[in-house]
Each structure stands twice: as C-alpha cells, then as structure tokens.
C-alpha cells in the first residue's frame, strides 16, 4: 500500500505544477482568503500566541472560533482532514462543492496517519510563504484521498447526514471509513478517531517545543515537552527574582496611564520612564540626555527578534518622550 500512496503524489505534483486550471483556482482563492483572516486574528486568541497559521486548525478542532471566522477555512481540504479527526466538535461551513466535500469527509478519516498528516500540517505552516505550493499540495492531497477511497473500499460507516444544511453547524457524527484489514467495530472506530485526534495535537505540540521535530517516539517527545515546561516555569521564577532585585523603583510606578497609551506599539521602552520615576520629572532630562545614545541600541539588541519592524517607531517615540 505504501508504494501506491507515494507514487500518486509524485504524479500529481508534476501534473499540477504545470497547469493552473479553474479547479485549482478555487482552492487558491480560498487560500488567499485565508491569509487576510490570519491578519485579522484577534490578539487574544489562541492563534496569536502560537504565531503560526496551524493553530487555526486547532481552533477548528476545539470549535472555539465563531463560525463566521472559520467559514472559509473548512474548504481548505487539509483543514477538513484535521477537523474530521477532531470528530464531534468540528465546525463546518457551507461548501461550494458538496460532492468534493463529502468525498473528502468520508475519505479523510481513512488516511494513512503518517504521510498525509504531516502534509496538512506542513501545508498550513507554509501557507503564508508559498500559497501556490500549498495549493498544489492540498489539491494533490485531495486527489490522493479520492484515489485512496477508490482503491481501498471497505465497509463505510455513515451515521448521520452530511450536515450540508447551512454554515457553522456541528457535525454530529464522525465519518470514519475503515481501511482494508482493519477492525470496523464501532468501538475500534471511535478509538481510532480518538487516537488520531491525540496524534494530531501531539504533532502541534512537537512543533511548538523547539527541538522536538527530530525526535521520534512519543516518550522522548513527552520528555522534551516536560523539560520545556519546567524550564519555562523556572525561568518565570528567576526572572521575577531578577526584577525584584534589580529595580526597586519599578514598583514605584505612578499612575502614568498616558505613558502606557503612548507605548502601544512598543512595550519595552515604556519601562524606562518608570525606571526613572524616582519622584520628579525633572530628573528625566539629565538622565535621558546621557542615556539617549544608549537607549535605542540597547533596546534594539535584545528585542530585535520581536520589534524589528517597530524599531524606527521605537526611537521616534523615545525621542518624543525625552522632549516632554
């Protein structure tokens, strides 16, 4: 079976890269539509923290987002695959192409775990960087799933209707198609769906924790995750101790809400008005005049990873603050 699967994508990879037909076009457009979605991402949402586009899949998995926001997403085939793995809590929008969708739905759960799962995740990670490649990949995965469905036809388990009535409703049952030679009892199917859900989330975890990608084997990955969590918790302790030690004046913050508002784009610089607030504002000029040659360079070097695009505004508003 493995060679069969591997052969198919190669074919289509070469086939699709050449032609850009309308069929690929709609997937491409949806992907285009997804990218503005990412930019509108609410700052407090789960997606913001992970800084990846893949978390939107997790959002779908746990049905946290409003249907309006996730509407274009399920059309993206690999998202549908992930959704399906999440079983009961999937959110579906009305698809433009019901036949395609039902195909994907019914087939997606029967995918091979390793090869296809990596593909949707990767395609989501690289969504922003290379949409044509992603559309190729996703289309290839659609084709491959359809092939799989034709090749491996065993007992089908359709429990409820396809939920094709409107947008944003939940899929009440898992559409699981058993593969050849696999147990098809309801228990084993449900268990397999559950296992796939867990594996999908473990993959996301692996990508979040640095250095887990190369490790194979759940035990080692879990080990790394545990180490990472413990390290982060210890860092919080040490950092709070450092902050307590270094700067008694840090806590003597006057209620300068104006400062907070003016530094919406750049949080690190807002601390040094507070640090200098040992009482009066008059101290600021002489301190800042001396510090001014240092401040931007000092702030940019630790924070260049975060605020590289903010640094011009950084120095601008720091100068502005100095004039006050």
């Amino acid at each position, binding site marked *: 079976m493995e060679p069969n699967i591997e052969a198919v994508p190669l074919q289509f990879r070469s086939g699709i890269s050449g032609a850009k037909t309308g069929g690929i076009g709609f997937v491409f457009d949806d992907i285009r539509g997804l990218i503005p979605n990412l930019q509108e991402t609410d700052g407090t949402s789960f997606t913001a923290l992970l800084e990846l586009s893949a978390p939107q899949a997790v959002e779908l998995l746990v049905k946290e987002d409003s249907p309006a926001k996730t509407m274009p997403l399920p059309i993206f085939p690999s998202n549908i695959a992930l959704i399906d793995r999440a079983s009961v809590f999937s959110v579906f929008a009305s698809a433009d192409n019901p036949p395609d969708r039902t195909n994907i739905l019914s087939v997606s759960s029967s995918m091979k775990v390793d090869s296809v799962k990596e593909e949707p995740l990767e395609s989501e990670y690289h969504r922003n960087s290379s949409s044509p490649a992603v559309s190729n990949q996703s289309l290839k995965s659609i084709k491959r799933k359809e092939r799989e469905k034709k090749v491996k036809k065993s007992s089908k388990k359709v429990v409820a209707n396809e939920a094709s009535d409107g947008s944003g409703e939940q899929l009440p049952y898992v559409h699981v198609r058993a593969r050849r030679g696999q147990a098809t009892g309801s228990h084993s199917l449900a268990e397999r769906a559950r296992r796939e859900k867990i594996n999908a*989330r473990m993959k996301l*975890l692996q990508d979040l924790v640095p250095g887990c990608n190369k490790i194979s084997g759940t035990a080692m990955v879990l080990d790394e995750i545990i180490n990472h969590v413990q390290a982060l918790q210890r860092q*919080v302790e040490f*950092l709070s101790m450092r*902050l307590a030690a270094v700067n008694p004046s*840090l806590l003597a913050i006057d209620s300068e809400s104006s400062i907070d508002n003016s530094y919406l784009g750049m949080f690190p610089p807002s601390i*040094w008005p507070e640090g200098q607030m040992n009482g009066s504002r008059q101290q600021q000029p002489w301190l800042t005049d001396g510090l001014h040659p*240092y401040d931007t360079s000092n702030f940019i070097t630790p924070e260049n990873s*975060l605020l590289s695009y903010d640094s011009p505004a950084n120095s601008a508003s720091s100068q502005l603050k100095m004039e006050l």
Partner: protein
Amino acid sequence: MQNSSSSSSLMVKQEFFTKWKKGLKIYSAFNKEMTIMERKRAIKLSADVAIASTRSATTQWSRAVVAEVSSSAAGAARIAAEEILGRKLSTERRKAQAGKKIVRRRRKAAARGAVRSSAAAVAKKVVRNRRRVLKRLIPGWKKLDEICLIKETLDYIASLQVQVDVMRHLANAGETLHHQQILL
C-alpha cells in the same frame, strides 16, 4: 515569522504587559517599601494573573490559576488580581465544573494477569508515566483528561513563552538602565 503573526503575538504581549503593570501599581500603592521577597512574590503573582487573564476562562489552566489565587490570596494580592481581571474573585469552592467528567478508572492490577514484559507494553507504561508527570505540571491538572491535556499544554506553553519574553525584556532593560544610572 510573518509580520501578521508576530504583530498579533505582540498584541498579546502588550495586553499581558499592561495588565501586569496594573497589578504592580496596586501593589506599590499598598506598601511603598517591600522586601525583596515580597516584591518577587508581587511580581510573580501579578504576572501569573495577567497571563491567565489574557486567556480568560477559555482554558482550564487559566481558570485554575485564578482559582488558586482567589483561594489563597491576601490583601494586596487579592485586590491586584481583581483589578487585573476586572471582576470580583469568588472564594467559595465550586462543586463541579460543568463539562468535565473525569472518569477515574480503577486500576485493576489483579485482573491484568501476568507481568507484561513485551517492549510495547513497557513503552506504553513509560509514555503513560510521562503523561502523568506532564499533567502535574500544568496548573489545574486535576480536571484534565488526556485529550484536553495536550490542548492545555499547547496553550500553556505558548502563554508561558509570552510571559517569559516580556519579563526577560523588562529585566534586561531595567538592568541596563540600572547600570547606566550607576555609571553616570
């Protein structure tokens, strides 16, 4: 990192930072002079509540952090937490959180039969132990089952990362300022 994603994470960081500062202000309003340990505790508590409030009520761990603070906090801590969250803390223990049914399976060790010494069984045992350890690290672990554990871990790691980043930048900048103040 794409600009869009880093900007949205920046929003989270700013939100965390403002909430954290709010808490610290309240602490400093309460007592001007604090020992270093008190300061550290104030900083840590404000930071924890702030980062939990950025995820407010959507995740189990954030609820657990808030619940822990509300049950064991005194005076300034309580008011700081309330200010950050924007709501009153409830001291009473809630009987059953809706939605999480934890089925405690009795380990029928006797029914297991012979000692499993196959490699797969050993691997499974190891994995199970590690999952248990991981579970204990996440705040509010009592109410987590296996699926939610992974999801909560994801969220928790990301939030911890935000917290550590902001605190580290603040500490670095503060220390540089401090050194410069000494030098000048």
